[in-house]
């Protein structure tokens, strides 16, 4: 609302000193880490690691045109891991007193057998690249500037169309400082800034029909990001989605030709194949991609890359949460499986090397192999050419979340904005569609890949085993045959001529 906006602008800024004046630093120095490593090895473990973290967060939420709350927090602690063969002992403490940390190290050490003299570790700093140099750490920025981003978007969404009934918005950031040292002598530090701004909008149409829209952006960037990614444009995009889907018809049910628009649709890769290539599932033989390196697992049009080095990417890591530099990894090349994503533990147990994929939600959890930014390499067709070639099908422009069952490969992802395709043109909007498929089968049915590689706008997160980490995805426009659309409208489409062979 205009009044609230004026009030905010005229409000005095918080006095200096009440916001953190400097970027957070990880709470442990190398000497303390060396001492804790020695304790963690005291019972004969063959590897130990100390991970220290301090994360400062701020958040602003908007409702009814006003800033509803402003929040901030500090979370810090140390996680200590001792590894003996495939066995892991883990303990963490958010008490940073040396005695508490020593107790944690001793607890972790218990995984191994009998007491023995532990070797001393001399830590050496790992040189790490910088994929997200931040000039002004988010934790040091006046909250008033963050508030303004949310208010600007709110105003834009309300101006967009009289049918916009509700706008909510949120800004959240964190500055996370980590230091990791292990008994191989590696010591790494990193400061990771991360922010996101998003808007959710409800539009009301004829007869009280309600549709929602959602859009936002962010990444490992500082607030300068929002000079080029305009809060107004983001909120207007959310509003556009809500208005565009008013009058949507029931989604057709059953297999059909689907064209995925570019961007966040990359969640398809993340669910359909990415999780199944994480090395822990491979080592345990619970992924259907186990033992398939060198085999054709997708259409030759499909090249999938997980890239932790994308500048400003939401999933990028200078070093991962085990201190290993982030990497660009080709997972699938022209349809052939090239390799998996490894953390240190699984790399060691499987005779490989870490691909900088060891990530964790916080010091409270052990690292696991995780994706960073996962992309499909572009093809050479224009999006228009791809669309024009479809006589009947579904065009999916925006998506919600997704989920996968690693063992049988079944995945879903929810479609937020979709249109019927008729004779190469977009038709009526469609509501309530979920796409479901089996990863490798769907990737074999990719028949067209566009020349428009597009990263998602940088607000995605991924949950695995209860741990949430930030990820990026990206996809050019693609066409997939015979993808099952979970709709409610039956019998409105011609039946598919040939059914797919399962799990070829």
């Amino acid at each position, binding site marked *: 609302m205009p009044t609230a906006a004026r009030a905010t602008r005229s409000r005095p800024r918080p006095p200096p000193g009440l916001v953190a004046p400097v970027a957070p630093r990880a709470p442990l120095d190398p000497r303390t880490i060396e001492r804790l490593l020695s304790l963690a090895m005291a019972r004969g473990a063959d590897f130990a690691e100390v991970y220290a973290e301090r994360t400062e967060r701020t958040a602003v939420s908007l409702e009814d045109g006003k800033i509803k709350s402003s929040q901030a927090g500090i979370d*810090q602690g140390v996680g200590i891991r001792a590894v003996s063969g495939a066995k892991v002992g883990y303990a963490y403490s958010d008490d940073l007193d040396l005695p508490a940390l020593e107790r944690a190290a001793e607890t972790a050490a218990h995984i191994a057998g009998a007491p023995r003299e532990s070797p001393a570790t001399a830590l050496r700093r790992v040189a790490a690249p910088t994929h997200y140099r931040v000039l002004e750490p988010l934790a040091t920025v006046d909250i008033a500037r963050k508030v303004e981003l949310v208010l600007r978007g709110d105003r834009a969404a309300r101006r967009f169309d009289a049918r916009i009934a509700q706008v909510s918005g949120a800004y959240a950031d964190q500055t996370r400082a980590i230091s990791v040292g292990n008994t191989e002598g590696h010591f790494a530090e990193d400061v990771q800034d991360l922010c996101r701004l998003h808007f959710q909008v409800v539009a009301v149409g004829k007869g009280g029909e309600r549709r929602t829209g959602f859009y936002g952006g962010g990444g490992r960037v500082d607030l300068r990001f929002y000079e080029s990614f305009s809060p107004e444009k983001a909120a207007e995009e959310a509003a556009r989605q809500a208005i565009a889907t008013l009058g949507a018809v029931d989604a057709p049910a059953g297999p059909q030709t689907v064209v995925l628009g570019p961007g966040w649709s990359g969640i398809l890769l993340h669910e359909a194949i990415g999780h199944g290539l994480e090395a822990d599932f491979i080592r*345990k033989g619970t992924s259907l991609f186990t033992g398939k390196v060198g085999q054709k697992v997708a259409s030759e049009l499909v090249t999938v890359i997980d890239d932790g080095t994308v500048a400003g990417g939401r999933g990028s890591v200078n070093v991962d949460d085990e201190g290993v530099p982030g990497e660009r990894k080709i997972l699938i090349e022209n349809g052939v499986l090239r390799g998996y994503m490894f953390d240190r533990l699984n790399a060691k147990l499987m005779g490989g090397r870490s691909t900088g994929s060891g990530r964790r939600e916080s010091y409270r959890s052990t690292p696991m192999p995780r994706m960073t930014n996962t992309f499909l390499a572009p093809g050479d067709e224009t999006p228009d050419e791809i669309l024009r070639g479809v006589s009947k099908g579904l065009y999916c422009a925006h998506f919600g979340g997704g989920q996968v069952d690693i*063992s049988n490969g079944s995945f879903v992802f929810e479609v937020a904005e979709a249109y019927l395709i008729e004779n190469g043109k977009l038709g009526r909007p469609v509501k309530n569609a979920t796409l479901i498929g089996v990863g490798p089968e769907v990737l074999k049915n990719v028949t067209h890949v566009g020349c428009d590689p597009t990263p998602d706008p940088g607000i995605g997160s991924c949950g695995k085993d209860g741990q949430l980490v930030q990820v990026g995805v990206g996809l050019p426009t693609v066409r997939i045959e015979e993808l099952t659309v979970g709709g409610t409208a039956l019998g409105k489409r011609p039946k598919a001529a040939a059914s797919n062979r399962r799990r070829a």
Partner: protein
Amino acid sequence: MATGRIPKGELRRLAERVVERAKRRGARQADAFAEVSRESSVRVRDGEVEELSQATGKGIGLRVVAAGRLGFAYTSDLSGGALETLVDRALALAKASAPDEANRLPNARALAARNGPQELLDPAVEALSTDWKIDAAKTMERVGRGVDAHVKAFESVGASDVAGEVAIATSEGISDEYRHGYVALYSAPVAQDDAGGLQTGYWVDYRRFLADLETPEAVGRRAAERAVRMLGARKVESCRVPVVLDPLMAASFFGGLVAALNGNLVRKKASFLAGRVGERIAPVDLSLVDDGLLSRGLGSRPFDGEGLATRRQSLVERGVLRCYLYDCHAAQKAKAKSTATASRGYQSLPAIGTTNLMAVAHAPVPAAEIVRGVSRGLYVTSMLGHGADPVTGDYSRGAAGLLIEGGELSRPVQEVTVAGNLLEMLAGIDAMGDDLDFRGQVRAPTIRFRELTVSGA
């Protein structure tokens, strides 16, 4: 295990001190929510310990209202200096929020007396040894392998326990604390067929009291059976058929309704249930009850995230929508009363939630009979995706389970979706089982929908 244990009353006094400081520094109102916990978990693999984890955690979150504006800050650092910074930060942040009359904490008059003990912490869980958990996890793995030769691997098998303490203090005279804990067993075996096809089964139990917990043998067996019976699963033709949800999936369905019952979304007309209080939205044999007082309930607590005494209340009574869920802020906006169901952790503001949500069947029938009454349909045992849109009521989720043919469970099915509209789905529940499940914070029996769209081949 005594780690993480602090002297009685100390956490509450810490919260009180933080609130007092906030008042002195200019907060009109304030509340502080503090937690300490210790957790211990074990995972096994191939008869050996794979991961042992032990930890203690703590933290405090402070909400302040100053000049009608809301600020919030939290910290995991409970040292004196950190707590001073906490108060100053929360007050500085409040200046960035807009004034709102609804930013009022409940006054002491709104507080009912405590409703007595609810058995939230079992001394046997508090004292549970690491060896017990290791043995339990090994047993689940061994029994699972023994169920069927197709059980070849495990995604994870483990046991864990958590014990903690929660305290709240407010400027309006609330000051209270309680201790709580639970123990959990879980197994996720993977079965493999001769063609190399994999299926994961999953079974879990978590309880406040050790004596209530399913045995490791039972959890291990059930998980393996659920994996093995899915081998060879494939799609079915798209169709409209009766759909039966097993109790876990039924709980997930009713849990999905919570977003639509959120009084704040209802006020903003961002819920398909807005304006329907007093309307029949479900069969007369169905009630939806939230009960924060349930003895040994996983969601039970003496007070909610804002310090209000919890209670038992019907949200849907014999099919009729009775009320929405409110925290204090949403209640004041909507001129309603808080349902005392606000959830809260120290890192966040209170949020509208539920305690123990139960789908009560007034005319339950044996679960087997529910399946027997279906000539062709789908029995759903696992789902993928979120699927329910609280604004529109549109529902579409990935599903897997068993085909029902001639009243019997037949071949396994995967890679299909079930879809409908929540209003129609609720009205179309035509049977509820007598097998109310007692694990988790949402409890439901087997339910059957008269007809939903199943999308497959």
